[in-house]
């Protein structure tokens, strides 16, 4: 593709952190009216490339061109002024400001030196309609569900009428409906001549929306070509550099064991009057649209959220538990969806994170047994193939490796019920497969897995049973043999699905 027609182009970019090269000699051209997919596993260098293109990082080598002119010393403000807008994976909204204030942030219309609120409202209303938000503009963003906030984030990017729009995993927190709106929006921007860079782990989305693809693997560009004629399997092969094989492991249902989780009329937070059971040897899925009380229910089981129940027995003990400590002693473990804020202590070392749940169990004469801790850490790092020095802060790891740490730290406690909240969100394919294997082998050992997932194929391919939540209630339980994407999505959307024999 000729560089002269590109709005934004990068030539031979390289970047390293602390001596580790993250990006090596990468070139990319963003052309008006083209939706350009950027693919790669976590840690492949996608985020670094975006940060370079948006001026958040300075390259060690190579150059960035805007309309064919080299941009030296690009900074975030300069990039914004040049028409480059980025929608980051991490939401960057001010929760106490209204929708309108967030959308216009940094570019408020002024009159006599004061913010011209009526004008702001008029201008933000346009972009709000584009992304299908129907909440009033004065609504504080903090009160919106995650998916709606993501739409505000996109509206904020559109507000400045960008020439280049970079979307970093825009759909990972969106409902199917919202994702549909976004797709239509992207196609419309394409018609208007905007250059779109689209990063996603969802290949079917990429296949449907994008025209061109750049694939990164370990910081090197492994493909830069039109998407036409490439199939999903081919893309996966380019990302992992080998045949991906089946994403999901093959498994046989285990003989049904004792009831480990048996709750009736269980309420916690948004979750209302839920009845739910899980046996030894089972992986029980919890599906539904994002934010329908799934998380509150599991937090209630885990003793992290106050709960009431008509009757509840978990691991043979009377529940609800009054504290997380009581739940973990009974044999529960929980891996949160928001690993950066809830699952891990980011600035602390990999080793401290791995030891945290086991603290107090590795004591000798009241003091921490350092050699036992070291053995534990190196054993866990080996079992989960976490590479490198475990004294590094856990935030230095890629998303997939961070998730492995968030999971691995529970293994020494040998939990009998593993509660997982969207464990593969933003995780690369290899790590996904490892996590899937771990779930099924966990169940095969006669333990129980409760899996909340926003990724429907996961529920279909991994679970013995799936309970679907809608508006805080468990509206359907789908038995093995009847679990299909249609059945789950139907129940989630409240569409009448014919009752299957359990």
């Amino acid at each position, binding site marked *: 593709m000729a560089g002269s027609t590109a709005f934004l182009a990068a030539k031979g970019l390289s970047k390293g952190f602390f001596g580790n090269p993250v990006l090596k000699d990468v070139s990319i051209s963003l052309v008006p009216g083209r939706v350009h997919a950027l693919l790669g596993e976590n840690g492949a260098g996608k985020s670094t490339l975006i940060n370079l293109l948006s001026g958040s990082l300075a390259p060690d080598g190579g150059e960035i061109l805007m309309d064919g002119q080299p941009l030296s010393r690009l900074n975030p403000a300069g990039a914004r002024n040049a028409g480059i807008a980025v929608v980051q994976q991490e939401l960057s909204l001010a929760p106490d400001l209204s929708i309108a204030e967030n959308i216009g942030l940094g570019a408020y219309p002024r009159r006599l030196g004061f913010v011209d609120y009526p004008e702001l409202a008029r201008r933000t209303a346009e972009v709000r309609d584009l992304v299908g938000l129907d909440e009033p503009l004065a609504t504080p963003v903090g009160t919106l569900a995650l998916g709606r906030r993501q739409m505000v984030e996109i509206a904020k990017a559109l507000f400045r009428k960008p020439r280049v729009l970079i979307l970093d995993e825009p759909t990972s927190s969106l409902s199917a409906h919202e994702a549909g709106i976004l797709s239509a929006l992207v196609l419309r921007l394409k018609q208007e001549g905007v250059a779109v860079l689209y990063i996603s782990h969802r290949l079917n989305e990429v296949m449907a929306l994008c025209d061109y693809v750049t694939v990164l693997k370990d910081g090197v560009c492994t493909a830069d070509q039109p998407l036409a004629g490439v199939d999903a399997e081919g893309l996966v092969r380019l990302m992992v550099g080998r045949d991906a094989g089946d994403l999901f492991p093959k498994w046989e249902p285990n003989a049904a064991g004792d009831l480990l989780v048996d709750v009736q009329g269980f309420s916690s937070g948004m979750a209302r009057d839920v009845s739910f059971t899980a046996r030894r040897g089972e992986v029980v899925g919890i599906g539904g649209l994002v934010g329908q009380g799934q998380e509150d229910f599991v937090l209630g089981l885990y003793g992290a959220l106050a709960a009431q129940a008509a009757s509840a027995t978990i691991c043979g003990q009377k529940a609800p538990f009054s504290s997380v*400590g009581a739940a973990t002693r009974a044999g529960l473990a*929980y891996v949160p969806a928001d690993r950066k*804020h*809830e*699952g891990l202590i980011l600035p602390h070392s990999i080793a*401290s994170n791995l030891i*945290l749940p086991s*603290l*107090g169990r590795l004591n000798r004469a009241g003091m921490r047994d350092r050699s036992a801790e070291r053995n534990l850490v190196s054993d866990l790092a080996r079992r989960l193939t976490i590479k490198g020095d475990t004294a590094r802060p856990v935030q230095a790891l890629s998303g997939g490796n961070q998730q492995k740490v968030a999971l691995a*730290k529970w293994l020494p406690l040998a939990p009998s019920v593993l509660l997982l909240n969207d464990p593969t969100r933003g995780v690369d394919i290899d790590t996904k497969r490892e996590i899937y294997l771990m779930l099924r082998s966990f169940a095969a050992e006669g333990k129980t897995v409760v899996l909340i997932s926003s990724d429907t194929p996961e529920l279909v391919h991994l679970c013995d049973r799936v309970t679907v939540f809608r508006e805080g209630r468990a509206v359907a339980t789908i038995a093995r043999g009847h679990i299909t994407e249609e059945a789950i999505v139907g129940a989630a959307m409240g569409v009448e699905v014919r009752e299957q024999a359990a």
Partner: protein
Amino acid sequence: MPAPASSSASGSVMRNLLRNGPFLTLLLVAIVWIGASFFSRGFGTYGHLRYILELASIIGIVAAGQTLVVIGGGIDLSVGAVITVTAITLPMLSPAWDPTGIFGIVAVLALASLIGLINGIGAAFLKVPPIIMTLAMATLLQGFLVIVAGGSAVSVENAAVIWLGSARPGGIPADILLWVAVMVGVLLLLHRTATGARFFAIGANSIAARLSGVNVERTTLLLFTLSGFFAGLAGLLVLGMNRQGYVGIGDPYLLTSIAAVVLGGTSILGGAGTYAGTIPGSVLLVTITALITVVNASPGWRNIMFGGLILILLLLSGREKQR
């Protein structure tokens, strides 16, 4: 910045030392001591340096509790008031039937710990931000002290406290020995026990710590109770050295305890740090105070110099790295 490949083992030891906050602070103290003894003949004498360490032991002990609370993500603004409470109530709590004075010490330390516990209850269960909770506690205590003491100084007859302030077993002042015991205890607690690791965990991310099974409330209670206890212990030393207590006697120790913590490289945001930095930080602060006393300046100027030097030192040294 890419780190250069390590050239030799001794080179890397050197680099590690130069990156080690506690070591650098200690180095600074040594330089100031040597420099000051050239300019002022009395400064470098054994007696004077011993006196500096005695004063530093008080700050160091208050700052022990402060270090723990700050690592746990809080702050304790009531330590000055707790020192005053200790100094004023000790004579009242030392009964005549106990000539050793041990009962009085135990009673006063229990009172100081109780005040800390109440701070902890406010922070952990009532969810009052620690800065507000402990400031309110300090104000409450000051009002209470004015009512109890009525503004007059009380003098000490408690034998054990007088011993603490004046005895020199083996030639070393008892307060310095006590400080050494506190150092050993606090460093072991922080870095060698599960409880210490939990302090760091809740200070860095209390949500992740809770979801990992840490009892955040109980840990917070313990932190503030310890801070109250150490402030009470420091109050006993203050009293032992001064032989009298009055309202306001603990006030200077609030800012110095926080300054010693931050000078020592502990993150004021919580989750990172060590008491090993606070120790030289305390010595440095007292050294500065002594230097300012040597310079013949009016009290107003001394305060200005003290405040200014603390700011400069904070800018130069142990602050957490900006991300």
